[in-house]
């Protein structure tokens, strides 16, 4: 009796193992809320060649670092109109994330940090419904010739209004990229 029961158990387990396997290929996951590319276009107010600053990380959290490009030098004593475009290029066609940020403008804000001796200043050019800065549009005033960095940070779920510093704003970082910038005389 013992043996028979044991054999029955074994047979049962065989059925169980066989019936559970499935060979369907799983679906790939295409990450939705990923920002792969930030392009900052700086157009001189008096007309002239626009300068672009771009960071592009097509493999997202993968091992490859973002590719950072700066198309040229800024000119001293010039004011530029800045426009930021965010894209998710893992999808085809690329998804424009800027629209999402502008729709949820009360939960987002760009921060601009000028460092390393760069003689420039930034002013916000667009605002959310509560008249707090958003920053997908801004103006950059290049003063005297200098070299330094411009760090651009996008945060969400942050404190608004804030004193303009990252520490006070808190929140979650969506983008943090530093560009090396040169202002020619």
């Amino acid at each position, binding site marked *: 009796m*013992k043996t028979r*029961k*044991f054999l029955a*158990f074994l047979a*049962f*387990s065989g059925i*169980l*193992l066989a019936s*559970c*396997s499935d060979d369907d*290929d*799983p*679906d*790939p*996951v*295409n*990450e*939705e*809320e990923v*920002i*792969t*590319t*930030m392009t900052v276009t700086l157009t001189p107010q008096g007309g002239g060649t626009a300068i672009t600053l771009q*960071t*592009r*990380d*097509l*493999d*997202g*959290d*993968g*091992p*490859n*670092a*973002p590719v950072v490009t700066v198309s040229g030098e800024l000119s001293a004593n010039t004011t530029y109109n800045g426009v930021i475009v965010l894209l998710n290029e*893992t999808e085809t066609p690329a998804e424009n994330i800027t629209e*999402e940020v502008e729709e*949820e403008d009360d*939960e987002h804000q760009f921060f601009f940090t000028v*460092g*390393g001796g760069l003689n420039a200043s930034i002013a916000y050019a667009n605002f959310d419904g509560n008249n707090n800065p958003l920053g997908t549009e801004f103006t950059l005033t290049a003063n005297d010739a200098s070299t330094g*960095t411009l*760090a651009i940070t996008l*945060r*969400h*779920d942050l404190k608004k209004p804030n004193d303009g510093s*990252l*520490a006070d704003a*808190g929140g*979650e*970082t*969506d*983008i*943090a*990229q*530093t560009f090396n910038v040169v202002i020619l005389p």
Partner: protein
Amino acid sequence: MRIPIALVLLVLFQIPAIAQQCQATLSGRVLDFHDQTPLAGATVLVLGQQKAALTDLDGRYRIEGLCEGDFEVELSHPQCLTLLYNLEIKGETRKDFEMEHHLEELEEVQVFGDILADQSKTGQEQRLSTRTLEDYSSASLGDALRTLSGVSSLNTGSNIVKPAIGGLTGSRVLILNDGVRMQDMEWGDEHAPNIDINSADQVSVVKGAAALKYAGDAIGGLVIIERERIAVKDSLYGKTLLNYVSNGRGGSASTELTRTFASGWYLNGQASYKKLGDREAPDYILSNTGMQEVGLSLHTGKRLLNQGWDLDYSFYRADIAVLRASHIGNIDDLIGSINSGEPSVVEPFTYDLGVPRQEVTHHLAKAGYYLRIKGLGKWTAQYDFQNNRRFEYDVRVGADRNKPAIDLELTTHTLMTDFTWDSSRDLKVMAGVLGRFQDNFANPDTGVRRLIPDYQKYDLGGFLTGEYRFGPDWLVEAGLRYDYNRIDAQKFYRTSRWEERGYDEDFADIVVEDLGTQLLTNPVLDFHNLSATAGARRQLDAHSELRANYAFAQRPPNPAELFSDGLHHSAARIELGDLRIGNETSHRVSLAYEREGDRWGLTLEPYLNHIQDFILLEPTGVEFTIRGAFPVWSYRQTDARLLGFDASGYYRWSAHWESQHRFSLVRGKELDQDVALINMPAPITRNTLIYRNPSWKGLEVGLESTYVFRQNEFPPNISVFSPSQQEEVVLEINTPPDAYHLLGLRAGMQFPLGKGLNLSSVLTVENLLNTRYREYLNRQRYFADDLGRNIILQLKLNY
């Protein structure tokens, strides 16, 4: 070998106390059920008449001066489980009894005193008392286990507590819940065992892989949770526990009811519920640290001496909020958190569970059968089914705000059977086989790349263990086990990661489909694991014994170690497994000296665990993304050596005063590089002074001091490039926090209410002085202080 003192007193003093004119006698023999040899020293007690006798060397007994009628006879023996028989006593009554002279894990009879089966006869083993389990009724299993010397825990906050034995955790610590190996995604550091502490009646911890009948890969150890034994008699009993917890402004309730029948049937149901809001550190609210937990279990079956079966079902659900401040954006945020020493988000107290949050559900169903064959042994067979579902919610935006970032479903079927030959008094042999199928499904609807892939896993195992007693003092045991595992996974790799890892050269043949930026691969990995153990035990005298054990064990890598690949959003780290990781092999040598006397007791447990190809997870650098830089944690194999020492003891100063002492130390070292192993528990000493006065409503007051030393042995920190500072900075990710000292208080009283009702109340204060501290093995130590003062008021009603 402990003879219940109460019984001895009963026998010695109560017999002369009753002298009536009843004339009947009861006599006969008590024999071993297995081999029919006489049992000497068994107590035959006629309940209701308080008359008893001990059996002589031939197993004979005789009780005179009994009144006639139907009585219950209780049969007990120091090495057997107590039995109850209904008997009609009339004139010269003769009755022979059979007792089971060996203790088993599946018991069908009433338990007496603390005669409990050891899971490993020669290894290091410790047991949690029912009282400790009840004291921690509003906490977690891991919290209760931590009271044992040599057991620590890897925490994520205070609600996620993952037990660690001898400095090892994760897949190296197996949890056996009522004979079922828990399959609840133990691979993740932030995955706590899915067990309601209120469903456990007895818990023992075996250090190292010394209990081969359960598993061979328990390089750290086993936590064995058992249910109470069911008495074969008509009875209805239960208990209810209510807890108020001040820190978290919540509490828990748990109730259990058991109905047993003389026919062997039983029915048991247990349910518990726990709710806590935000926990509090001494100086601030730990925002988003509340939790809610539901546990339910049902058991039924029929248990007789010769055969029996059980059906069990249990359900567990936990919703656990994870400290909001521990969700960080990138490495600059992490540097900021480590440097500021304060959580970045502190909000007013709430019961709401926000994000990050885990929602875990575990179903366990089991059917078991045993058959005892007279003069041969016992056969058991068991099937169990487990379903584990885990959602992890993260801080997300837009339409994904309420979507889980992780959605995994793990389903496991296990079939096992074993046979124990225990008919010989001196030799016991056990053999068994096991088959298991497991399926993991990672739901792609999360919109986040799978951290753990879809996989199917097949396990086959077999073991043979034996123990032999020679003479009254010596016991030797040995065992051998083999396990085969196959993992058949379907995993997507980012093409860039695939190349960065060098898989394009080593694993080109497993690519199924190229999707441009991603590759679908089909890794099929086979592992053969051998384990063996040998040990001896020597009884030194009535109170003390010495044990020595060697355990050889191999553990296959778990899915996280093999496949982990991606950003852990809530931990802000990129975790990388490696397909090339193979088995790790442990050689563990342990000694144990145990003395348990009336006045003092002492347990000394030194051990050496040499692990070849030890798999560890450590910070190795940073990777840059558009969101900034993230620390990378990679799995790696190396040879390691753990040297540890656990000690515990007690001294009874007087009838009222007792002190208890515990100390644990473990040193882990990586052998090739001569550096310390990461996440080794710091030395800890726990000392308790207890005052007892049974005549004052069972008053017991204990003052406990816990001192945790600073962990001075840790691997070096890493240096990373901080984008915001535009320079390399040292990330103090491995630096342990300072030593700390905590005081605790426990006071309990009992109030018998008559008719079998018993009310007891316990007041516990944890962190009495509201000390600010951080614990090295708490993964949230970078972000916030640990818990402040916590007052727990517990009411327990037994009926």
